[in-house]
């Protein structure tokens, strides 16, 4: 731990705390104070911790970023905004970690649905926040959670009542404009029984160094369904931590699609707790080039019988990029008839790229079906020759195969508008020679 780094942040905590939302709520003041003191003691996670062993954040600790305690008045370029904001969704736009009502699109929400900024929720219905806050994850997990607990400036509070199906997705669009700053949003999403919703989490930022440290707590009650898309396109100088912690009720369904494209160093945590008969599907695609470091960490806890989990993460790593996948599946003693599959496939495009992959199965029940598979490799020479023998030149053949490898994950996106946007991001990252976009 870098003591100078933690001291730099905690020194101003007391003066900053009164500007943070919910400062008049004793319970939250206590959580924030406890978290700040935990952060003061442990700092950001160290590579000595098993779950951080492949990701050394000492470079981040050398930075002195300032928390965005005040609302930003930055003017957002409208073309840039529209490139990321989905027209067929309700959207909440956050600038430097603060909700912007002007840029958000929230017309015609069903009246029984609560969708509001976390700051609003803490001033108008704090008891509803209290009921779930810190229940899916807390500051003891690691330093980024402690930091988020202590300093979060805003976020989303969303509650979907029983049986209600949201007809449009809800987008959380995080835009970072300030250099050397930290955006800290905290999002709380609750789906009551048999409710259905889709969320899209998008991260973009100006070409600066900054830190995003966002935490999502998700409660999916029994028979409810939630689909979540994360599209991380931070600036290539940025640090990103995004954690989603999900509690699934009986027979609840959760699907996550994680597109990790941006950031100098980006880490994603996804933890699912599965109750009886519930199902989770985790899909991921990470692209690394230059000196990017992209870390994906997932944990699936099969707590009760008859739950299923499916996981497929794919990485494409070029130049000197490094990709990390740590997937842990824990099957509790009484979680009989668990059905779990975990796969991680990595494609290395350069000799200097690196993939670290560590699937872990911990099984304490005896009647389960669990499997995992991992590959790290280069493009298949047989496939390249086959395409060449079908008139495709070698460079195009390589591009085509690389694109096909990644595109499998993008094809899982059901919504056309979002699919096309993510496809654009993918195509922008790779040489397009040999890829005919209009045939796809």
């Amino acid at each position, binding site marked *: 731990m870098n003591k100078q780094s933690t001291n730099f942040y905690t020194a101003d905590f007391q003066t900053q705390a009164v500007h943070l939302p919910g400062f008049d709520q004793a319970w939250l003041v206590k959580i924030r104070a406890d978290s700040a003191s935990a952060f003061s003691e442990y700092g950001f996670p160290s590579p000595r911790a098993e779950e951080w062993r492949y990701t050394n954040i000492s470079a981040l600790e050398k930075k002195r970023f300032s928390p965005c305690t005040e609302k930003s008045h930055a003017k957002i370029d409208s073309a840039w905004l529209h490139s990321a904001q989905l027209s067929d969704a309700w959207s909440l736009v956050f600038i430097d970690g603060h909700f912007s009502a002007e840029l958000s699109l929230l017309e015609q929400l069903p009246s029984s649905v609560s969708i509001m900024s976390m700051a609003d929720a803490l001033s108008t219905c704090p008891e509803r926040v209290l009921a779930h806050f810190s229940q899916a994850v807390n500051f003891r997990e690691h330093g980024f959670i402690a930091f988020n607990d202590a300093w979060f400036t805003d976020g989303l509070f969303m509650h979907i009542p029983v049986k209600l199906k949201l007809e449009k997705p809800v987008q959380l669009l995080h835009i970072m404009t300030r250099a050397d700053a930290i955006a800290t949003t905290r999002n709380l999403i609750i789906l009551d029984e048999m409710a259905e919703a889709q969320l899209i989490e998008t991260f973009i930022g100006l070409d600066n160094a900054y830190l995003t440290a966002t935490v999502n707590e998700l409660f999916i009650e029994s028979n409810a369904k939630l689909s979540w898309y994360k599209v991380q396109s931070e600036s290539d100088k940025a640090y990103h931590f995004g954690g989603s912690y999900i509690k699934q009720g009986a027979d609840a369904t959760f699907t996550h699609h994680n597109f990790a494209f941006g950031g100098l160093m980006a880490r994603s945590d996804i933890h699912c707790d599965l109750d009886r008969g519930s199902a989770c599907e985790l899909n991921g695609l990470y692209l690394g080039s230059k000196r990017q470091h992209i870390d994906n960490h997932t944990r699936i806890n099969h707590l009760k019988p008859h739950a299923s989990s499916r996981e497929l993460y794919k990485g494409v790593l070029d130049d000197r990029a490094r990709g990390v996948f740590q997937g842990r599946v824990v099957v509790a003693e009484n979680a009989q008839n668990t059905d779990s599959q975990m796969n991680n496939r990595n494609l290395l495009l350069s000799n200097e790229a690196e993939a670290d992959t560590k699937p872990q199965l911990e099984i304490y029940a005896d009647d389960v079906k669990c499997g995992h598979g991992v590959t790290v490799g280069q493009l298949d020479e047989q496939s390249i020759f086959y395409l060449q023998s079908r008139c495709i030149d070698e460079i195009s053949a390589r591009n085509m195969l690389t694109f*096909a*490898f990644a595109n499998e994950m993008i094809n899982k996106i059901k919504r056309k508008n979002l699919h096309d946007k993510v496809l654009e991001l993918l195509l922008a990252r790779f040489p397009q020679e040999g890829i*005919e976009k209009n045939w796809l």
Partner: protein
Amino acid sequence: MLHIENLHVNVGDKPILKGINLQINPGEIHAIMGPNGSGKSTLAHILSGKSGYSVAAGSISYNHADLAEMTPEIRAREGVFLAFQYPVEIPGVSNIYLLKAALNAIRQHRGLAEVDAMDFLTLVKNKVRILEMDEKFLYRAVNEGFSGGEKKRNEILQMAILEPKLCILDETDSGLDIDALKIVADGVNSLRSPERAFVMITHYQRLLDYIKPDFVHVLAHGRIVKSGGPELALELEEKGYSWVEAA
């Protein structure tokens, strides 16, 4: 069209082909038969440009150009088509995408404009019907999850659409049941023309019952040890390879 003269090919230091001479003219069908390890597949690979083989001596001239000087894709665009013994699965690339990319690469090579989308679809669907394939195959990933017979039929579909001048069929009959074999053979026969030549590499006489060759060559120990008409295949079927190997 294809003139092979005293061709010696090595894999590493090991000589595989030891002086092949072969003349193939437009419109002809040549069968190359031989026991396992005789160098049949090496001949197919060296013609299509697969890496890992070196020409130690001799020459391959294709339409008066040196074939060995061309990359695999240039050979393909110039009309050399290899139907693979083991067609490769390409997950994530649809059949129709590859067909279109390949056809347009040929057209570009000839200085022609990209194929019109509607014309292309009509062409492809027509060929699919002739080969008794399901149209759904077009939208599936290339060869992924295809049965052995489906993969071979898919090779012939590609051949039908790309209209090559020299078609090399590497053990196309292997792994096919009799119904699939008939469909594949009908597909090949429908492509016979005075401008197009075929080289069929096969271990068994069976395929030649359905596709009648003009010439049969027997390859053994890296050399063509006997050449003749279609009756040679029947003789081989009857007497086995030891008969010619000893010769």
